[in-house]
């Protein structure tokens, strides 16, 4: 056993290295079924966090991952990367990624998990990444039986659910601290 390398903050200047030209596109934005998900990252005072980096990872609509490894996949959808990263040099706290709406995937003890994305949040001021999940408000039936959501105190579940907007995009704000603090997970 070797000790692992500790985490350190991403700092305020990650934008010189980490954002990619197509980084926020887990799939081509013109692909059939592409959806936009975004929101704002907020601190305890409700002020936007301009130097945050958001990454998402999720399955395709068939519940398959763009992973070379043999975990039920790989995704057969051409051009589906499954991974998106959003951060800006001149950020204003907002973020947005494009992906396909994920399908259900297997969960613990043979249960199904509701459609979701895994999310990493990095920022100046965060010495390690914060991990959360995005669920979808228009999947209420699946959400009601999701084993992870059921494990979250009921009064906090709404922080994990993206709301569907009139234009078909999803809104997911991330509150790092304070009232309605987003649920973060230990993985």
């Amino acid at each position, binding site marked *: 056993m070797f000790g*692992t390398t500790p985490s350190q903050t991403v700092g305020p200047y990650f934008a*010189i290295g980490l954002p990619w030209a197509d980084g926020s596109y887990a799939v081509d934005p013109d692909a059939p079924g592409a959806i936009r998900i975004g929101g704002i990252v907020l601190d*305890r005072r409700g002020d936007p966090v301009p130097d945050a980096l958001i990454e998402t990872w999720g399955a395709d609509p068939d519940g398959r991952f763009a992973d070379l490894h*043999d975990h039920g996949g790989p995704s057969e959808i051409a051009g589906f990367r499954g991974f998106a990263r959003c951060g800006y040099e001149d950020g204003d706290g907002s973020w947005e990624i494009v992906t396909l709406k994920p399908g259900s995937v297997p969960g613990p003890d043979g249960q199904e998990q509701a459609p979701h994305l895994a999310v990493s949040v990095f920022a100046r001021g*965060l010495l*390690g990444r914060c991990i959360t999940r995005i669920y979808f408000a228009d999947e209420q039936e699946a959400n009601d039986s999701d084993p*992870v959501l059921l494990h979250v105190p009921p009064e906090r579940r709404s922080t994990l659910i993206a709301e569907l907007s009139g234009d078909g995009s999803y809104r997911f704000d991330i509150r790092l601290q304070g009232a309605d603090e987003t649920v973060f997970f230990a993985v």
Partner: protein
Amino acid sequence: MKQEERVIYDPVTDTPINYRREDADAHPPLDFEPYKSSALRHPKQPLIYLPQTITEITGPQLGPASVAAGDNDLTRQHQGDPIGERITVSGRVFDSEGKPLRDTLVEIWQANGAGRYRHRWDRWPAPLDPNFSGAGRCLTDSDGRYRFTTIKPAPYPWGNHHNAWRPAHIHFSLLGRAFAQRLVTQMYFPGDPLLEFDPIFKSVRDPDARERMIGSFSIHATEPNFSLAYEWDIYLRGPGQTPFEEAF
């Protein structure tokens, strides 16, 4: 390291189905008062235990298309040579069982030889270098090895407290092979007198873990009449102990 420990995963059949849960002091606490900008940003609610499901044990595998030739040489991204001490930084990426991670993306970014980042928000009045952007990337090879040629970054002051200076460091980002292995960290340089005053470095409580963020000078890796060299191995979480899928 013993030869038999240097096993490389078969990417299809030998992928871990879960990852070891880490000790509380393996990483810095999110709530760390000496690092001032953590105050309004760190979550205060307890983290909720999440079993590692297929979402967490898979991860982006971007492959060679994510890297272009020369992306790992930060000294040749412009017409002229950047100013400063040319160094190579190389090492291997392992999991905590000592198995190399091949084909994993390593991204770096850093200040220039005067301690200035090419970022609009960096107002430290040290000179920008027209021949240095400060970012690079590479994929690890079949031995888990990465290698960058760059300029040694300089320390710089910051506003955390009176007379605060960051020790020289290079930011590293690793995707690993799974969402669970994702790591963003910083590499420091041996013998830097600023380390003991730096709240970010010292946010890691375990002194042994802190040492794992410091590269070592290697005379063997230097290139005569070209560059000095530092070596730094990176360890990501390895497989968990039980072969069974986790549950609540």
